[in-house]
């Protein structure tokens, strides 16, 4: 029997779909882009390093950077700001995204197409472009100020850009599709007979929405919230462009520590705190989603 070359056998295994082989490329990518950098991050965060000519010449184990960061008021302020911003963004995206997804659920084919196009189209353009559009809209001579002045409601342009509110507006707009799409995916799977049964039993549209559709949509809300929170909490571009030079969030802080201060250990510690707090909030979201889907899971059994 002739043995086939190793490469061909590997390709055969991959294409056969058996065992772990189909997942090998993804595992390799994950190890390269996630596990190795995470290891480097941990090693830098928990050590004092000396760099010369771009090369680490000494590295000693130390908790100094972590303990200093945890006690630093600037970290407290910055992380509180980032957390508030991300949670507020998640709240507004849920509030605005749910009605859109509901409209998709009850709308006809044309309404559905329009909603899909309006939701997906912004994702096809760069986040930087969309953020710059907000500068044009919210700026001193932007559409909002020009309209308010035109109607005589204000005499001087309002300062909207370079404030927390500008960042929030930009974040909600940028991340809204990320909330709508999982909601649409989950709500489209609803058994429409449940709504018909609810209507036949005399429930109003609002009662059906509250007691049938909303509880069944919790998995979509949970997924959307987790995605929006993660992206908002770790975002870099929107605060950079809409927050102005004295708006500091956690991701911007990491960037500045690594790029401008060239303090890798500090940047690594900040990134670790960012990741740990993000995971903690995601666990809370997962727990809330679990609680919220208790009855529907029982009913579906």
């Amino acid at each position, binding site marked *: 029997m002739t043995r086939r070359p190793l490469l061909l056998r590997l390709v055969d295994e991959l294409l056969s779909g058996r065992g772990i082989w189909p997942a090998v490329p993804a595992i390799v990518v994950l190890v390269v882009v996630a596990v190795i950098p995470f290891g480097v991050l941990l090693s830098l965060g928990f050590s004092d390093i000396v*760099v*010369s*000519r*771009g*090369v680490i010449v000494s590295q000693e184990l130390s908790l100094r950077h972590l303990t200093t960061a945890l006690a630093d*008021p*600037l970290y407290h*302020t*910055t992380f509180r700001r980032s957390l508030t911003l991300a949670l507020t963004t998640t709240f507004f995206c849920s509030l605005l995204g749910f009605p859109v997804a509901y409209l998709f659920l009850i709308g006809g084919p044309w309404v559905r197409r329009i909603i899909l196009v309006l939701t997906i189209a912004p994702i096809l353009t760069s986040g930087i472009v969309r953020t710059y559009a907000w*500068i044009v809209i919210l*700026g*001193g*001579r*932007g559409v909002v100020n020009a309209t308010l002045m035109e109607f005589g409601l204000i005499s001087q*342009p309002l*300062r909207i*850009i*370079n404030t927390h509110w500008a960042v929030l507006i930009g974040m909600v707009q940028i991340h809204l599709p990320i909330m709508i799409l999982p909601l649409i995916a989950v709500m489209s799977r609803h058994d429409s007979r449940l709504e018909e049964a609810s209507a036949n039993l005399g429930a109003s549209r609002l009662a059906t929405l509250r007691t049938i559709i909303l509880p069944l949509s919790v998995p979509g809300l949970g997924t959307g919230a987790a995605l929006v929170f993660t992206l908002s909490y770790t975002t870099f571009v929107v605060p*950079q*462009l809409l927050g*102005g*030079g*004295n*708006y*500091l969030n956690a991701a911007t*802080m990491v960037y*500045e520590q*690594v*790029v*401008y*201060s*060239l*303090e890798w250990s500090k940047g690594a510690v900040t990134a670790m705190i960012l990741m740990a707090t993000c995971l903690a909030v995601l666990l809370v979201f997962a727990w809330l989603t679990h609680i919220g889907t208790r009855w529907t899971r029982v009913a579906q059994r």
Partner: protein
Amino acid sequence: MTTLSRRHFLGAAAGSVALSAPTVLRAQARELVMIGYGSAQDDPLKRAGDILAKKYPGVSLRIIGGLSAEAIAQIKASRGASPYDFAVMGSPAIINAVDEGVLEPLDLAKVPNAKNIDPRFPPYAYGMGVPISYAGIGIAYNKQMVPNPPKTWADLWKPEYAGKIGLSRPQSNLGLACVAIAAAAFGRPDSDTDFGLAKWKELKPLVGRNPNLLQQMLERGEIGLCPLWHDNTGIAIASGLPLGYAKVTGPGPLILPTMIVKFARTAHNDLIHEFADILLTNESQTFAAQPPYYFGTTVKGIVAPAGAAAFLPSTPEEIASMVSVDWPKVAPNRGKIVEAFDRMFAG
């Protein structure tokens, strides 16, 4: 024993060619990658690149815009293997780059035109490069919002400018200079950056993340005036914006020389020296001095165009009082100054 078939041989050959092709192509093409301005100010660099390409067919220049600090961080992250060959760099960035060990000094013997450089400028290269131009730091203002611009740096603290002032973050050379200027304007040494930051805090400025974003804030009317590079202001004025530029004193007029510096381990050592030499010819210097950027020239005997007087020191008094910041005392603390800035402004 396994026999080597023609198929195996061809496969191995094709693989080797595929792996080595980028290296071979790069070697033949000889592309020089430099950090430039990323805007119209790159014109004199592009011109010099064209001259070099004509002399050496196959040689090309790619200019990548961005802050020098970002390039230094990239080189540090890539463990000293710089993706760039050389850069235009101001004094503070050179000091930071030397601290990180990412630069190699230029050999002035290979830059014959360096002998024509005005002796006031080479000290700002800290032995690393050749000064090719200088930029002024003054106050750019919106003529509609600020009818009477400041004449000295201390004038910025007059009540008439309150609520209209902008500032660049200190990670940029401009922002770093502003912190030092605020200290010097009130009789403190440049290096007293805590005092400088505290003075800026009094003004409650609107802060731009970098000079370009600060300039955009000025153009949109969100601020009325701010410290800015003269060349950026010149370009904005040339595009028809209602801006003006004040060459302020006390200290000043303030300038920052710009050098050509070479990153360690570049493969294009001789070409970089030749590029620097082209930039120091009278033709290149005269080209750089033209509107809209009006670069200050570093070679002796170059006559600046009439329009340059609005941006750069022109009278004998101004030229005599032309200064820069005490960079060796300020630049090494850039990281600490940025952190102190955040504690004061964003905390």
